[in-house]
């Protein structure tokens, strides 16, 4: 990879120090605050740093390093390798389908010995990058053509299909909505989205009949009518609502949540961690976290708007939208607004896989900010 030439902007050959000065430290601070809230709740779960908070801190530190590393790499390098990354991620997904480890009743992981790789997480970012590159390479009038919708649609539907087979409805939804939002930003005519929305509605009964597993159907039914089955599948969501509601405005206090500490609340350190925040810190605690997330989204949108090239813009917004979808789906789920689909709360839920994806995603966001003036042309593709 050369560091000079007619197609490279001045930002491509700056020193590390120069790049660091371009990093949006406000964004990094926001990320630290959100993760800090997560550590606090994880501490409350066990009443100690062990076992949740301490491990989460180690992971976060590792994620922070990854984020900075990704932020400081050359955007051009990623620009050149997007399709390769996509094919790699797709290959890993197929591999999982063939012989992944069985975890939580669904095939999702590849055991690398030191690390359990979840290919669907890699795919979330690879797809964002691949779609961003696809639209970067096409002027608006071409992007609007019908034939140019086929490739993005395939790029999206392949991983969605594979993830659905695992089966992981939550991740499939995240990939689908993340991909669709990039198509929207890339210039695809609005009427296609309206049409796709209508088609999706029409497909619901078909999907219900042929594509969803029984446990997924149960979750949806439970979501629609949690009180029907308060001791079975509806139990989780009922207990989550009770925990949140009983927290009130001020909450019951740090480590004082009865629902969480007496184990009425399920999965409190992972998917239902927002509920625990709501129980112990009340409406105020929840609003503070939502505000921090909003700051992060605003940073994301601002970085995208400041960027001078389509690739960067789409990557930045793609990452932001993915991040947003995590937040929205998780919180809506624990409050009984969406079915329980198993999506963690970004940077707060205990668990390494999603955190790595998100930290790398944030790395790309920072990278775009640093390289907002980069010149990237079609010819930079490794072919």
């Amino acid at each position, binding site marked *: 990879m050369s560091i000079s030439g007619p197609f490279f902007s001045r930002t491509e050959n700056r020193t590390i120090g120069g790049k660091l000065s371009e990093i949006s430290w406000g964004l990094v601070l926001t990320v630290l605050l959100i993760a800090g809230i997560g550590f606090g709740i994880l501490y409350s779960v066990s009443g100690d740093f062990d076992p949740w908070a301490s491990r989460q801190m180690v992971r976060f530190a590792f994620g922070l390093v990854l984020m900075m590393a990704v932020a400081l790499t050359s955007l051009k390098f990623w620009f050149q390798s997007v399709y390769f990354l996509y094919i790699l991620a797709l290959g890993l997904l197929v591999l999982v389908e063939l012989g992944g480890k069985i975890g939580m009743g669904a095939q999702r992981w590849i055991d690398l010995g030191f690390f359990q790789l979840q290919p669907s997480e890699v795919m979330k970012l690879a797809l964002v990058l691949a779609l961003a590159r696809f639209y970067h390479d096409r*002027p608006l009038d071409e992007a609007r053509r019908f034939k140019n919708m086929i490739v993005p649609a395939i790029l999206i539907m392949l991983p969605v299909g594979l993830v659905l087979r695992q089966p992981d409805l939550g991740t499939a939804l995240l990939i689908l909505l993340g991909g669709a939002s990039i198509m929207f930003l890339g210039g695809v005519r609005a009427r296609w989205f309206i049409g796709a929305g209508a088609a999706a509605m029409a497909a619901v009964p078909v999907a219900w009949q042929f594509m969803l597993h029984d446990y997924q159907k149960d979750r949806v039914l439970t979501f629609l009518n949690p009180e029907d089955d308060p001791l079975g599948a509806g139990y989780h969501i009922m207990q989550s609502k009770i*925990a949140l509601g009983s927290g009130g*405005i001020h909450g019951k206090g740090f480590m004082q949540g009865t629902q969480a500490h*007496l184990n009425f609340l399920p999965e409190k350190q992972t998917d239902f961690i927002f509920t625990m925040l709501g129980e112990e810190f*009340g409406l105020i605690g929840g609003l503070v976290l*939502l505000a921090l997330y909003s700051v992060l989204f605003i940073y994301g*949108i601002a970085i995208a708007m400041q960027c001078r090239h389509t690739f960067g813009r789409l990557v930045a917004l793609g990452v932001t939208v993915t991040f947003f979808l995590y937040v929205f789906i998780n919180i809506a789920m624990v409050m009984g607004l969406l079915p329980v689909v198993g999506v963690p709360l970004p940077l707060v839920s205990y668990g390494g896989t999603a955190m790595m994806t998100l930290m790398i995603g944030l790395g790309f966001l920072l990278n775009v900010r640093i390289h907002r003036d980069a010149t990237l042309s079609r010819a930079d593709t490794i072919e």
Partner: protein
Amino acid sequence: MKRGMKTYQQSSERDRQFTRRALIIGAGQGLLLSSLVARMYYLQVVEADQYRTLAEENRISLRLLPPTRGNILDRNGVELAGTRLDYRVIMVPEQVPDVEQTLAYMTRHLDLDEDDLDRIIRQVKHQRSFLPVTVAENLKWQDFARINVHLADLPGVHPDAGETRAYHDGEAFAHVVGYVSPVSARDLQDNEDPLLELPGFKIGRSGIERSFDLELRGKAGSSQTEVNAYGRTIRELSRKDGQPGETVRLTLDSELQSFAHRRMGKESGGAVVMDIHTGDILAFVSTPGFDPSLFNVGISQKEWDGLLNNIRKPLLNKVIAGQYPPGSTFKTIVGLAALENGIVTADDEFFCNGKMTLGNGEFHCWKRQGHGHMNLHHALEQSCDIYFYQVARRVGVEKIAEMARRFGLGQVHDIHLSGQRSGLVPDDAWKRATLGVPWQGGDNLNLGIGQGFLLTTPLQLAVMVSRIANGGLAINPRLVISHGSEVIEHPAQPIGVRPENMEHIHSGMWAVMNSVHGTGFRSRIRDLPFEMAGKSGSAQVRRITKAERAQGVIDNEDLEWQLRDHALFTAFAPVESPRYAVAVVVEHGGSGSGAAAPVARDLLVETMKRFMPKEIAAAREEKARS
């Protein structure tokens, strides 16, 4: 250049579109986040109170603390029914390293069979591991102590003591005290007492246990504990102790009761000892009895069938629900009715030649050769049937029935026991209503000797003889002295009979026991310086046909048990100043003087020994001096 222009135009249009769409997405995100905030507001502000209540309901478990059932005491405070510790061994599976090994170890020290082991292992598998499993209960102290010694080798095994109902001399008291048994599904219908839903709770089913069940039960306490989602208790938040049940004190004398039960032996029947001035029932025995603790844990089908199919009816409370013709014991009432109505005087005589005819009927005296000339005194003494036929014919059913009722027959006495029968004092109206025919002259004769339609219970006979003994005071029988702080009084009114008439009856009853011609002479008191008075009765349970009478009436000893006459005896003592009365019925005992009189005498002797030791000593001293 043209292409460049186009690219430029396009890229500026793309910029605008991107900016527009990025803002749309940003606005969409804002909108969705606002919906989250709205939902949070709804849950945590609008509905917060409701969810707070639900969270408390989750967290707080209200446990009822069963109160200790009240005791049932005799008149001296001896515990007839009480609560004993039930020694048992429990095991908390989560504290046991190896359940099978622990059970094997315990099998060496406790009597555990295959069924027990199966039940224990099933429970260990199916319930949460912190909930205790009962290994063995109702342990003997030795077994319990042995396990306690080995506790060090048995982690997770705990000695425990529960409460169970225990009865003093159960068989003797079963018909008075009653029994308790587990709550049934039917009890739970329309039930408002949450106590009944407690596992192992017992309800009083018969006797005093039943009549005073609510008083004995007490009030439940409660304990609020914090529990987690699996039901494990985290800590106790508050505790309100229950109120133990009331103590019920009976008029019975436990030793006299046990004595009476032993004295009745294998006979089937009932015996009542009564204080004639207060109506206190000192002994109340129905035999055979049964073991009330059989019902405590649930009776087995075999045991139940055994009780039901026994021809001596152990479950029947014969004192209040056994109805017998009073036989000759009723002659006292017939005589009194005659005297009180001035129809016969004590000196009037009737001639007994062994039989008399009335219309087409022939009526016999129990003594075939006849008694000769009889006045009231001798008629009572020798229980002459002819004399009382003649008297009854003259007095008539209405006056006899009226006197019988005044002396407590034909009615239920309130002694707080259920299942009481009223017996039957027949009269013309009753016969017309029931049988559709008027009262006949022959019916008068049968009534005169306490046979025919007349039915009495042993309790009524005791009331009758008590009211005779006390000279005509209508005492009411009392079984319960008090429950809790409430004392039960049974006031008595004078019946209004002339004392000289009562004297005549007393003298006849004295002669029964103390004249050599008396039917009870052989059963008189010999070992106390006091005399008793009594009246025997033998009630036929079969009809003696003319043919049989011609051949000679078959002796009771030669008949099947169920066909023999009931033996009855009513008595009181001491004669000079009466204090205690007794009524004894021995079902199919043959003759009153033979089977019932000795029992009655022994009960009176025992009663006097227990209640009048000073008087006995004084009388003995006086006798020795003179």
